């Protein structure tokens, strides 16, 4: 097939071709970047929390008065929760993986370090923590009951022993000998690492350099974390508030939420953005395809006689079909080339403002192929109609 005559015809009616080319370029640029955002958000949303997500729920409660025996009350609540049917274990903590708020502390290898070696998310646990969260102990041991100390408001004392995640262990001791080592919270406070657990997500997204401190937070408001046996969560969630009210009626139960709800809340914006981008991309592809169909139809209508003449002069149907497909390939090719440039430019901006990694060449090439294929598909119907123009048209008119 000779493309020179096609090119010459295109140059003569260039407005339509430019319009379609621009559309294709914009479509490709958006498609690549949206795809890259959606995939990266998806990866982030599926990031495992590192705990038994399917069977954990959280109950947020607060005492109304200032109970002098707050520790006894907390332990009474926890004992009642642990006794509920279907409950494996329960514990109390200030925060949870992906809950959205929490705090971190710097850890050093020497008492008087200017900059800490690692900054770790802090989780508070008791001796029930391992079973409550379903953590996987990689080395060492979990806390004994007598190691758990009280955590009062702004009266922190570093516990004698801590458990760290494997990521934190690796940052602190790249040689892999974290177990049994001493780490420093401040020039005067240090702890010994007695155990290493598998990866656990941070309270905010990302960062799995976390540590477990054997401390029971003695606040009026508490988060109870309850792990049930599979299938027992709904029943336990229904029974828990009544059970706690029966213990102490004068309290607020703010929220009873399965961990899936926490995950959904944390990633709500990511999910929304992904869905919106997917919808816009789908619409975009449809609109671009419609544009191609419309404009090609118009070209076919305008060249009706010309096509009839070519057919009369011996061109086969397949030649007419090939003509329009080649023409479309030329336009789409130019559009795609421009689109790749646009995609990379938009990606520069997005990567800077959204802390996303750069779009990979695979997405760009994949997107380009997808757009080219779509264009060819869109042109098929008008081209078929062109091919079905009878040669007689050439002689019939005028």
């Amino acid at each position: 097939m000779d493309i020179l005559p096609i090119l010459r015809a295109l140059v003569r009616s260039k407005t339509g071709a430019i319009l379609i080319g621009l559309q294709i370029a914009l479509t490709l640029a958006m498609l690549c970047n949206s795809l890259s955002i959606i995939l990266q958000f998806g990866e982030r949303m599926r990031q495992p929390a590192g705990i038994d997500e399917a069977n954990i729920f959280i109950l947020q409660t607060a005492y109304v008065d200032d109970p002098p025996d707050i520790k006894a009350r907390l332990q009474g609540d926890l004992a009642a929760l642990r006794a509920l049917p279907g409950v494996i274990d329960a514990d109390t903590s200030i925060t949870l993986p992906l809950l959205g708020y929490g705090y971190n502390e710097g850890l050093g290898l020497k008492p008087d370090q200017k900059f800490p070696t690692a900054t770790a998310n802090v989780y508070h646990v008791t001796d029930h923590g391992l079973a409550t969260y379903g953590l996987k102990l990689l080395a060492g041991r979990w806390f004994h009951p007598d190691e758990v100390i009280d955590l009062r408001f702004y009266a922190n004392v570093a516990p004698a022993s801590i458990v760290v995640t494997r990521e934190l262990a690796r940052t602190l001791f790249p040689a892999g000998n974290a177990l049994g080592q001493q780490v420093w919270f401040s020039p005067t406070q240090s702890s010994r690492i007695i155990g290493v657990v598998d990866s656990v997500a941070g309270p905010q997204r990302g960062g799995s350099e976390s540590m477990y401190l054997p401390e029971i937070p003695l606040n009026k408001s508490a988060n109870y974390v309850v792990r049930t046996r599979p299938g027992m969560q709904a029943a336990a969630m229904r029974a828990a508030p009544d059970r706690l009210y029966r213990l102490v009626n004068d309290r607020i139960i703010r929220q009873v939420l399965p961990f899936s709800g926490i995950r959904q809340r944390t990633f709500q914006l990511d999910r929304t953005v992904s869905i919106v981008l997917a919808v816009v991309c789908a619409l975009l592809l449809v609109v671009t395809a419609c544009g191609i169909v419309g404009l090609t139809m118009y070209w076919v209508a305008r060249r009706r006689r010309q096509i009839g003449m070519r057919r009369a002069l011996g061109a086969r149907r397949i030649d007419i079909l090939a003509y329009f497909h080649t023409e479309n390939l030329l336009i789409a090719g130019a559009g795609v080339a421009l689109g790749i440039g646009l995609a990379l430019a938009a990606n520069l901006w997005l990567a800077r403002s959204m802390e996303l990694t750069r779009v990979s060449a695979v997405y760009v090439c994949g997107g380009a192929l997808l757009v080219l294929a779509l264009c060819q598909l869109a042109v098929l119907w008008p081209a078929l109609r062109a091919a079905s123009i009878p040669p007689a048209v050439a002689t019939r008119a005028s």
Partner: protein
Amino acid sequence: MLGYYLQMAVRSLRRNVALTALMVVAVGVGIGASMTALTALRSMSADPIPDKSGRLFTPQLDIWGPQRNQPDSGGNGDRLPTGLTYRDAVAFMNAHKAARQAVMYAVGLYVRPAAGRPLQAQGHAVSADFFSMFETPFASGGPWGQKQDDNRESVVVLGARLAARAFPGADAVGRTLNLGGRDYRVVGVLKPWAPLPRFYDLNSGAFGEGEEFLLPFATAVERQINTNGFESCNETPTGGWEAHLNSSCAWIQFWAELPTAAQVRDFRTWMLNYAAEQRRLGRFHWPPRVALHDVVDWLVYNKVVPAAVRAISLAANSFLVVCLLNAVGVMLARFASRAKEFGLRRALGASRRNVFLQCITESILIGLLGGALGLVLTAIGLSGLRQLLGMTDPASAVHRLIALDTGMVVITLAVAVGATVCAALYPMLRASRVQPAWQLKVE
């Protein structure tokens, strides 16, 4: 003449329903997508206090110095904390450098209503100027004054929702409410008031319901009511409440009303002097570094509008451009296929202007139809967005954040018509340049 053009436009649009529908749908879908994004973006980045935002300022102070290792919550890389320590906040208040100034922090307390279980309420501990500075609207009663602040009195201003819940069907002013186990005298009840975003304490939740209660800052501090909102520390203080107050934890928001540029300058100079003095006193071991932001600046600094929302808006606007390019193409085809009609009109005496006007009437009609469709799609898009974001309670303040208002309806229609006419400009020019004789000669 306009009636004639309109009549012709309607007739020509009806002649080829499929092509008309294609154009209207292209414009409508594009407008719908971009307006949905624009509404979300506009309401999220709206100025929450438009008549005063340029006069309200919040300061930042380098209280941790260069050795601070934790990630900066402001996120702008300047590593200044987005709040003040208690001691600095008190020093700022005592300096009286502004016409009006207030300190505040978020607190959560339980409330014991007349009947039923206690409930959790969310509010702020604020100083007296908060009310006049932020122009909080009162339904009854009024704010407390400087005297109540100084005497650490047990007074409270209630939000509309909490007042209705705690004292159903009655005026709360003058009544006593038990908050966190202490009795407070209600001095005022606010009308529904929820600046969005809540500029004065962004890091304790920028998009939420309005305050349920406001109580005096000094009273709250004396009663050791801790914040349940923003707090950022570079080291964990130990030693109870007093240590907390003297610590380097930033947890207090300070706002000042500075009406003139000279006052802003003076305030900044005073802050620099204050930081220099702290250095002399041996508290800071680094050169003074301060910042002063007005409301809009503060929203940008805190990245209130997530970049993801900006990305959506970029996507939606590119989509609108594609839809319009599409409309240009269709219109080109449409006008070109009617070259003969235009030729005939020109031959019968219509001027180029007449033909142009005819085309423009048609485009405006298409734009209006597309805009109407776009409005419907925007409404659907916004309700979908609310669904995705979990804002399903129509009574809530955040619900109105993503909602269509009259202004937006007018803007949508204007954008639709404007964009369509712009898209039609080139095809129209081509149509009106038709040579009458040439067109009639062919065939």
